């Protein structure tokens, strides 16, 4: 099938098989693509270390604002979705647990919520702290 039908096939699969497995397959695929794109942006931001210390500081200050700290928390959510769902796939593949995949999904969801609360205790206050004051002092923010 031609690649231009990507979205069409994607939506069609959800229509034909509107079950938990399809939902987690879509979730895994979308989070995977998002993380691949993030990997490129992450490398771009950090590779400024090769230009100069100042360039590195400027780019890092740019991504240490309340807005980006919200995105960072969402990033962690995407990482854990992909990680927990991936582990579920590995368990199903290697331990003959295919028939238990729905149970594994709900266990994974509980682990995900626990992880997000745990990371939230340190990442959510970060959104409201004064790190952006330092960014303003550097003249990176208006």
């Amino acid at each position, binding site marked *: 099938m031609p690649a231009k039908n990507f979205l069409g096939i994607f939506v069609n699969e959800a229509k034909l098989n509107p079950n938990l497995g399809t939902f987690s397959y879509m979730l895994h695929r979308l989070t*995977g693509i998002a*993380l691949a794109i993030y990997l490129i942006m992450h490398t*771009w931001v950090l590779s400024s270390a090769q230009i100069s210390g100042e360039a590195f*500081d400027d780019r890092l200050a740019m991504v240490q604002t309340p807005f980006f700290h919200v995105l960072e928390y969402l990033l962690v959510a995407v990482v854990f979705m992909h990680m927990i769902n991936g582990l579920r796939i590995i368990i199903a593949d290697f331990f003959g647990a295919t028939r238990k995949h729905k149970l594994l999904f709900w266990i994974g969801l509980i682990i995900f919520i626990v992880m997000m609360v745990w990371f939230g205790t340190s990442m959510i206050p970060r959104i409201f702290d004064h790190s952006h004051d330092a960014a303003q002092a550097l003249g990176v923010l208006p």
Partner: protein
Amino acid sequence: MQAYHSTYSTFTWLAQRITALFLVYFLFTHIDFNHLIQWAQGEYGWTGLIDFSFVRARLQSGSVFWMIFYFLFIPVCVFHAMNGLWGIIADYRPSPRLGKFLQVVLILIGLALTYFGASTMINLFQIGTGGTNAG
């Protein structure tokens, strides 16, 4: 017969799972070390903002451990990402010609990411003479 099957795709399928298990460990350590950074308050000249000298001081504090960690982490992570994207593309059965082309594109992106990632780490670890002075 499709162009993509048999031993080659079995290898990449298995490699995706093996690298995934590595990444579980790598990512926890990496996120804990670099994104929950406010736990490091008061350490290494923390000013409320992650900056060049802070990252450098932290990375170099673990000496060889962080070097081994990141020089393994980068290629494993990049491989997992590119192999994953290839898995998605292969699912939509591109023609052998388009498939080969996209494989080459993914390999080139992967090599570029590994190169930029590794050379950045060489700079941050100040290996050789590649290091610039802290800003």
